[in-house]
């Protein structure tokens, strides 16, 4: 178990040591993102913008326009939500090298509750031309995605979370941008997850296998651009698809998969996720069952279609 956010200081420090021309900004949350550790190692390349997310993104835009690759922290609900206009009208419109590695995305924030949880960040960013969206399933994938973010041209969002999450990969993992990964082959139903729901989908597949149901599990790690070919090919094979995410079922992974399948290969689909409602305070382990985002719910959704 390791939190995806722990990859932030590790990878940024590694990049800067390797000579990458990066700068990091935060909005009074450097202790949460781990950027305080990057700041300790590279004090001239870190600026804490204080509680002012709009100015953080605006400053990042200026740094990027002057040639820097800028990583921005903060909490995702504020970095993406409050500074959305700054991201829309300058970062993305001008295709600037601003990489969002804010933390505490999703409902896995837990006790802070609805104001600090995000269920709409993927939807908000998906519709911005030039934005790339990466959702890591574990620490190792997060680290690889942060490296990829630095190398990619233009804005990138890596959806980082707060809690320690189980490993799906190991240290040898290599991320391929734009590639959905088939983690387990199967012919009866396709389970597509991203982030923490990848492990849930794998557990659901194990549960279904006990009943002789062979589920194919896909990690749609790159939400934008979505790997349409892999998803369509799997749907063509299984004829049934379940998506799962700690995000609203509107506009996120489920929405994106629904768009792709509806246009290319209409396929029965169930979307597991937040059902058009706000989050709430509780230990995050209790929130997932409360909102119906679990391996059991994914398996149940699959059985509904069989």
């Amino acid at each position, binding site marked *: 178990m390791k939190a995806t956010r722990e990859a932030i200081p590790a990878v940024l420090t590694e990049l800067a040591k390797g000579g990458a021309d990066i700068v990091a900004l935060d909005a009074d949350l450097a202790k949460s993102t781990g950027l305080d550790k990057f700041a300790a190692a590279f004090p001239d390349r870190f600026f804490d913008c204080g509680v*002012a997310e*709009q100015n953080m993104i*605006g*400053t*990042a835009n*200026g*740094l990027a*326009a002057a040639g820097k690759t800028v990583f921005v922290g903060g909490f995702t609900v504020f970095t993406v939500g409050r500074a959305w206009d700054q991201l829309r009208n*300058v970062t993305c419109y*001008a295709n600037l090298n601003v990489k969002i590695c804010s933390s505490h995305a999703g409902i896995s924030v837990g006790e802070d509750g609805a104001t600090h949880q995000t269920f709409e960040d993927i939807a908000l960013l998906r519709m911005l031309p030039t934005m790339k969206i990466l959702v890591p399933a574990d620490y190792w994938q997060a680290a690889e995605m942060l490296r990829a973010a630095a190398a990619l041209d233009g804005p990138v969002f890596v959806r980082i979370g707060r809690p320690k999450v189980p490993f799906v990969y190991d240290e040898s993992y290599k991320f391929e941008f734009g590639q959905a990964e088939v983690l387990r082959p199967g012919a009866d139903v396709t389970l597509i997850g991203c982030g923490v729901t990848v492990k849930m989908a794998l557990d659901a597949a194990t549960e279904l296998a006990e009943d002789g149901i062979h589920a194919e599990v896909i990690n749609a790690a790159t939400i934008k651009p979505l790997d349409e070919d892999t998803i369509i090919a799997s749907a063509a094979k299984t004829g049934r698809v379940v998506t799962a995410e700690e995000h609203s079922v509107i506009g996120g992974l489920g929405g994106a998969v629904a768009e792709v399948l509806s246009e290319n290969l209409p396929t029965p689909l169930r979307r597991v996720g937040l059902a058009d409602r706000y989050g709430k305070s509780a230990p995050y382990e209790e929130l997932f069952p409360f909102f119906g985002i679990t391996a059991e719910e994914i398996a149940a959704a699959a059985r509904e279609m069989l």
Partner: protein
Amino acid sequence: MATTDELSRSDLKRYLEERALTLRRHCLEMIGRARSGHPGGSLSAADIVAVLYFHHMHQSHKNPRDPDRDRFVLSKGHAAPVLYAALAENGYIPLRDLQGLRQLDSKLEGHPDMNKVPGVDITSGSLGQGLSAANGMALAGRIDGRDYRVYVLIGDGESQEGMIWEAAMFGAHHKLDRVTAIVDYNNLQIDGHVSDIIEVQPLKDKWRAFGWHVLEVDGHDVIAIEDALKEADMMHGKPTVILARTVKCKGVSFMENKADWHGKAPNDDELRRALEELSCVPEVGA
């Protein structure tokens, strides 16, 4: 711009006033032809932009991406016509391109796009963001040990945006003395007088309280603008803001000081009359 450095003050004044007049004519012709655009804030800023682009800033159309160039951030992006006119007169884009403002086959968007127009240092249009961008450019220069300065033009109505004051705090905190902000203070915004909509005064006290060096000038006195810019360049340890008192739509008698001309294009007759008024060199000592 070495050539204008050798001019006497009176010659410089005459030269820059003529340049500003040319910018104003371009702006009205562009907006008139497009039948849309923002003449008010373009004309109020014409003298400030003329001093920056025809004398004060160090940059050249020969290398619009020169990492050492001075930067200009048009935070009030709706004044795009005056920036495009200055870039065209400086050779960044052909003069004839000005005719395409806001048209489908043109790169001259209603608000400036850094990826379409050489010389535009950052994309703008959504108000309140330019000062933050200028701060970011100055930080990048500091990291790289470059000497360039960043000039950012802000509207007075735009100063109602909270982000301006976030950036003001940030700039002072980081002692960004290579940033010079200029407020185009014409006291008019779309819905009326700034002082009637949401008062921004006392602007001088506000900026001072936020830790900035504050200068006040007549925003149509090119020599006063140049002197203020020079003083700002000499400041160490804090950024400077120049509060430039201006007149909206300055230079056209029947358009001056009217909020209606914020975002309305002159019709053919109005354009003809406006260009007539702008055809002669203004009186010395205006």
